[in-house]
């Protein structure tokens, strides 16, 4: 399975870049280790820094199908792992009722053909080259669900009482993401490699904007990157409840292009700011800071 992963950190960085994901070296190292050591990778970071995108990019690079499990409050085993097709089981049982012994009946209805595979089981049973499993926003699920994940994360296997243990032939490359609305259990963290994703620096942000919005003029892309970088740093960030992520800056650049903007000015920022901020308090806090945010950089 080693040959399924990419040869070196450098090769992985380049492969990710070729599918449009510009990963910093630290992140590439963590991903490389995770796929080589076959350990799940836990990504934490603010919303919109590219956690989910990484899994998508990785699935393209490794040419493995992406299986996504979106977590939510109250998620249960039957939504994450498997469920029996009860209607089909019931029909089979009715049809065979008078012809089979109870033992035969019981055996017959717990066959794989009555199994509905949910994301985790799908990922485990994906034939070569295996899958990329994205367990998205795991902090949204509750503590019992984390406990349920442990067997999978540690051994890449799950137990189904009626069938026995299902073990992965090829361990899925597993990415967990968390927005840190709560701290995850230490037992989960112990089984994973960990990477904290920061907002990108100005240069990387600029490259991302350029790549995702090629129609934007160079000057505009520069301005967008500078504006966003200032928003995320003190003193401006302290006045805002949330800094915009990469997803937002790309969206914003697209909007600016759609409005045929050549240069940022307070007016155009005001009219498009709804893309960056979705809280009234933040909008109010932004207005007095606009001038300072739009001031040209010393080196420009």
């Amino acid at each position, binding site marked *: 399975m080693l040959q399924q992963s990419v040869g070196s950190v450098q090769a992985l960085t380049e492969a990710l870049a070729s599918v449009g994901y510009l990963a910093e070296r630290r992140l590439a190292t963590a991903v*490389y*280790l995770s796929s080589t050591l076959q350990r799940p990778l836990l990504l934490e970071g603010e919303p919109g820094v590219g956690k989910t995108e990484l899994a998508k990019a990785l699935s393209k690079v490794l040419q493995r199908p992406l299986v996504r499990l979106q977590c939510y409050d109250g998620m*249960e085993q039957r939504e994450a792992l498997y469920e029996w097709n009860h209607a089909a089981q*019931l029909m089979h049982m009715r049809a065979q009722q008078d012809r089979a012994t*109870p033992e035969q009946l019981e055996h017959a209805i717990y066959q794989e053909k009555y199994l509905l595979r949910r994301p985790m089981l799908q990922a485990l049973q994906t034939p070569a080259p295996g899958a990329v499993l994205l367990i998205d926003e795991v902090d949204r699920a509750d503590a019992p669900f984390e406990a349920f994940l442990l067997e999978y994360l540690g051994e890449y296997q799950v137990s189904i009482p009626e069938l026995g243990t299902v073990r992965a032939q090829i361990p899925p490359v597993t990415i967990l993401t968390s927005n840190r609305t709560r701290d995850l259990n230490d037992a989960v963290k112990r089984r994973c490699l960990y990477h*904290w994703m920061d907002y990108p620096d100005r240069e990387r942000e600029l490259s991302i904007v350029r790549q995702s919005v090629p129609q934007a003029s160079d000057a505009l892309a520069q301005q967008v990157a500078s504006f966003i970088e200032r928003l995320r740093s003190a003193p401006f960030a302290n006045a805002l409840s949330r800094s915009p992520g990469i997803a937002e800056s790309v969206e914003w650049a697209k909007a600016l292009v759609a409005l045929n903007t050549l240069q940022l000015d307070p007016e155009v920022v005001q009219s498009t700011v709804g893309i960056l901020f979705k809280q009234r308090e933040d909008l109010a806090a932004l207005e007095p800071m606009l001038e300072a945010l739009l001031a040209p950089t010393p080196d420009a």
Partner: protein
Amino acid sequence: MQLGDARVGKMADNIVGFARTLRRAGFPMDSERISVALESALLIGLEDKQDFRAALEATMVCRQQDREVFDQLFDAYFRNPELTQQLLAQMLPKTTEAAPSPKRRARTQEALAAITANNSRAKVEEDSIDFDAAMTASAQVRLRHADFESLSASEFKLVQRLACEIPLSWPRVPARRTQRSRSGARVDWAHTLRESARLNGELLSLPYLARRTQALPVLILIDVSGSMERYARLMLAFLHQSTRGLARSVYAFGNQLTDLNSAFRHADSDEMLATANQLIQDFAGGTQIGHSLAQLRLTQHRQLIGRRTVVLLITDGLDTGEPSALAQELAWLKRNCRSLLWLNPLLRFEHYAPSAGGASVLKKYADGMLAIHDLAHLEDLAQSLAELVKQ
């Protein structure tokens, strides 16, 4: 991998040593983690220091707040391991100080003090009650209705102890998870089929799935300004015990916001209070509720979990900040929680009306106002909470 065995041995030593250093700095570090780190280091090699650092970080760090410490220790350790010892000593003043003088817990000390007091048979006749023996019924009744502000020091301790024992049945709401039950909205097909397969396909009964219930998460915001000092201590002790097992976050505020979650992780109330004392810089200072809430909004807004949180705002409402700023912050808080309850010790005065600047704003935004000035009212709290939260 160009490294020979000997160098691997040396590198292994260094990495294990580094891991032990991290462990001393409070990183969760077990032998499995170390072995994964070793494996990663072998894979990545030593050619590029940044890659090597990233490899160790991915395997040895598991919390965002540990990253800075990791960076400092990494720099120090792989340049000069001895420097690390000094750095550790600087970083961990508590562990180096605490180790040589194991302090007795407050509860132990009290227990010992009570024994010596008994033995020497204190001659001074106190008009307050004995607190070492079981209380008489009349003393209990008196204390139940005694205002916390009017208690003597020894009575206060006793009341604090009693407050910790008051149970608080926290309001529960239906959760998304289900459990088997006799009635409910959904049939438990998995169980039904398992049963009927055993009974040759007969459906004899239909078990149902009903929603489980879960306790609402709680956010405790407690005023620790001068006018609230006594109530704050008592309420902290009371809530520490009675909200145990709930998803809870605790913050103290005076002039600024203090995160008390680490203190609340202690199981023992005395230890919790001691840690809280150390954490709170502005105990018995002024009150700026609006400013503190703004800090909460900007830095800790994630603590308000999915709008289900019940917020307990414990304050007398004597706010020195700007009422309009307070109103704005309270409006935000109210939008983001399930109920905003104001626990107000000033309700001890019969004709109290929240008319002062801050208090009138609080009255406007709070979903309910509850009295907490004596034990009897604390006991009623559970009932009142349930009624208010249901609305």
